[in-house]
């Protein structure tokens, strides 16, 4: 298959070898599971169980609350110990509503699972989407956007390609690599089912060429599947970015503020495809995921299949614990992952990696003055001028930074990674994007208020108008009776007469 060049990017040290050759191992069931109600982008789920309830594995604990939301299921059987606020896997470490499940060790499945869809390729696509929504599947590459919503993109558009993202361009992470090597057939089947739901004409699996085993195994698994092509894409960070992977495959840039679906491409992660396979073929909801536990401070790095809600500290102790205090604990990959304030946060649907990195690995240095080397401009995969944007943001000229395109930045981190002066460019951009979002929200609020004020004014006006009209009518009525009495007395007088 012909590939197309993608602008810029970097070649970070991949450091995948410590986990890439070790098979996925299941985490022993922890003592408690902490299941946040919001593990996805969109509205948080709403609990349908109460404290003290006994639940079975696969039973629904919380229901989705809107079109963009996802339910939460019990990863094992046990008792609901609490529904309370618990620290979220977020840099702030702020608590969020969480269901705490105490496993009973029996791991009994509920009887209430839906029947498998035996012939998904002759089923109504809507039935597949409903099943995916029911299973609580979200984008497992890290974005955690509800997958069923993304499977509706074919409703109004023609989708040519379902692109399965197996690029795994982040250093350290090998969870997708291992899932591809160990569960290739499930991924291919899940991908074909998703293609059916989307009405996509074909499936392309994009895998970075630094994963030859995954490429070979997936290629072999795809041989029997019609319309599925496995493609080696260059190992060039950020190849796993939806827009950039799409460009490499079809050679088109996704226009700003549009979706890849507008070009006829929908991108899903390999682990998502596997979860869809489980939901459709076995009627099982999303209960666990594979997490790479890595980094130089972890004694025995592994790929762990962990039930959702397991604490990061459970995973780390399963991997032999920490050999030394880490400089950073990262949720996700080292390029785009978010720092974690503590290990006492749960694994959620979007947790692809937990990295405990040493100071040598992070290589953080104090920032020096920018020498305008222009490397950030050369390597920016979005065609931006990071040096200039950061300079304006430093001076609080957020409006200029916005004009220069800071909102088109995907925060891939290539510029910060390569900067010889160690300037935290992405940090500036995230700050600016936060401010711009606040401004947008405020502007929307202002618009909303002005609409409301206008509506109220109009309503009062209408009431006043109505009152005036009523008064006028009364006036008229008064006048009419006044005119009438003149006649009436006449009549009266006539009558008297």
């Amino acid at each position: 298959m012909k590939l197309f060049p993608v602008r810029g990017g970097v070649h970070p040290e991949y450091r995948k070898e410590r986990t890439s050759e070790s098979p996925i191992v299941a985490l022993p069931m922890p003592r408690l599971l902490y299941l946040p109600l919001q593990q996805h982008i969109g509205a948080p789920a709403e609990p349908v169980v109460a404290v003290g309830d006994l639940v079975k594995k696969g039973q629904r604990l919380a229901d989705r609350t809107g079109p963009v939301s996802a339910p939460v299921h019990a990863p094992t059987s046990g008792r609901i110990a609490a529904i309370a606020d618990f620290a979220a896997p977020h840099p702030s470490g702020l608590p969020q509503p969480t269901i705490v499940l105490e496993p009973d060790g029996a791991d009994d499945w509920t009887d209430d699972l839906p029947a498998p869809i035996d012939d998904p390729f002759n089923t109504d696509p809507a039935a597949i989407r409903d099943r995916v929504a029911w299973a609580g599947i979200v984008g497992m590459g890290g974005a955690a956007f509800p997958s069923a919503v993304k499977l509706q993109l074919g409703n109004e558009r023609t989708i040519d390609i379902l692109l399965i993202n197996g690029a795994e361009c982040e250093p350290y992470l090998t969870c997708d690599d291992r899932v591809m090597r160990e569960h290739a057939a499930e991924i291919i089947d899940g991908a074909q089912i998703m293609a059916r739901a989307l009405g996509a004409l074909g499936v392309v699996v994009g895998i970075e060429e630094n994963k030859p085993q995954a490429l070979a195994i997936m290629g072999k698994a795809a041989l029997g599947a019609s319309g599925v092509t496995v493609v080696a894409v260059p190992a060039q960070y950020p190849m796993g970015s939806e827009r950039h992977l799409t460009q490499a495959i079809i050679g088109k840039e996704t226009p700003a503020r549009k979706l890849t679906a507008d070009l006829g491409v929908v991108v899903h992660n390999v682990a998502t495809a596997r979860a869809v396979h489980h939901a459709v073929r076995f009627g099982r909801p999303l209960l666990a995921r594979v997490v790479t536990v890595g980094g130089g401070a972890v004694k025995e790095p592994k790929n762990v299949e962990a039930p959702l809600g397991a604490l990061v500290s459970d995973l780390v102790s399963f991997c032999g614990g920490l050999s030394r205090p880490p400089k950073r604990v990262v949720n996700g990959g080292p390029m785009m992952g978010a720092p974690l304030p503590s290990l006492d946060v749960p694994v959620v649907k979007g947790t692809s990696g937990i990295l405990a990195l040493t100071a040598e690995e992070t290589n953080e240095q104090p920032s020096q003055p920018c020498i305008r080397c222009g490397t950030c401009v050369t390597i920016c995969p979005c065609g931006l001028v990071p040096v200039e944007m950061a300079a304006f943001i430093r001076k609080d000229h957020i409006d200029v930074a916005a004009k220069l395109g800071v909102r088109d930045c995907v925060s891939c981190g290539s510029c910060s990674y390569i900067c010889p002066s160690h300037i935290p460019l992405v940090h500036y951009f995230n700050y600016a994007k936060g401010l711009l979002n606040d401004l947008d929200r405020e502007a929307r609020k202002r618009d909303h208020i002005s609409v409301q004020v206008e509506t109220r004014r109009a309503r009062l006006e209408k009431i006043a108008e109505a009152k005036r009209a009523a008064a006028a009518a009364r006036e008229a009525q008064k006048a009419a009776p006044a005119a009438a009495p003149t006649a009436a007395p006449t009549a009266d007088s006539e009558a008297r007469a």
Partner: protein
Amino acid sequence: MTTAFTDKSGPFTHAPTSVQATMTAVLVALAPATLFDLWLFGWPALFLFAVTVGSCLILEAACLSWAKKPLQPAITDGSVVLTGWLLAMSLPPWTPWWVACIAAFFAVCIAKHVFGGLGQNVFNPAMVGRVAVLVSFPVQMTAFVPPHPLFSAGAPGFLDSLRITFGAGTLDSMTAATALGHVKTELSRGIPVSTSIQQVPDFLDMALGFHGGSFGETSALLILAGGAYLLWKRIISWHIPVAMIGTLLVLGTLFHALSPDRFTSGLFHVVSGATFLGAFFIATDYVTSPVSKQGQLVYGVGIGLLTWVIRTFAGYPEGVAFAVLLMNALTPIIDQHFRPRVFGRTRKGDPLPIKGGK
């Protein structure tokens, strides 16, 4: 509970890049040409080199402490050594010490620290230093000597050399014009280029460096080798050198073809003077050149054009330093007008249209 820092966004890994590594690579690339010219011009060149780099370091330290800025890492990151090094290479090899010190003052204090130090200067410090002394002390700054290789017959000894650099002696008997200077002088006396060009060193000597000139600029080949090293290490890209040398070559060749008596050839422009040193080491200075590739092409073409115009029509035989400074002044404007196209947007900044009506 382990607590870790969450004070900063990712990435939490970093390429093994640093300002120091970049500067060191440039110094390594300069070393062959410098060593050759140290040999070619002997002890006085060595003294000049030491005085220039040394005074730049001292002045940098003085400026930093005056501004109450930390000396580290500014002193050891190699940037000020590079400024002093390039400045030394742009001076005639027998320049007296005090001229070098004044040049260093203009380079470090005026061009760099007045603007705010590393990364803030608008003009290339080494070229500001060179031009300041060139216009102030034209006699000393045009006292080019023919090569006197170290330990060869007629080369000044150690003590004589000390007198050349640190004494007040006159050197008129020793000087010889550079190729560019010779052609210019002869042209002003009415002797056509086609005649005067016969008396300059032949092409091979020009390329190898066996001719008079500024201390570091004579060996085009060794400078080219250094430039190639920088390209290979991806410290610089081809855009500025190719645009600058290409413009000189095209203009020179074109006008030489029109009037060989008036204009020197393109090849002569390329191998003489500071063309190679300028193209690979001075015009490519990060701080004072545009950041985008498109901008760098415009900037390179501008330097080539101005160099040719100054060499051909102005009073000075050599124009690289002036051309670089003039284009430095345009860098902010070039940066504004030549940005890369943003992903998913047209050059104007509107979202790309969706073709095929999807």
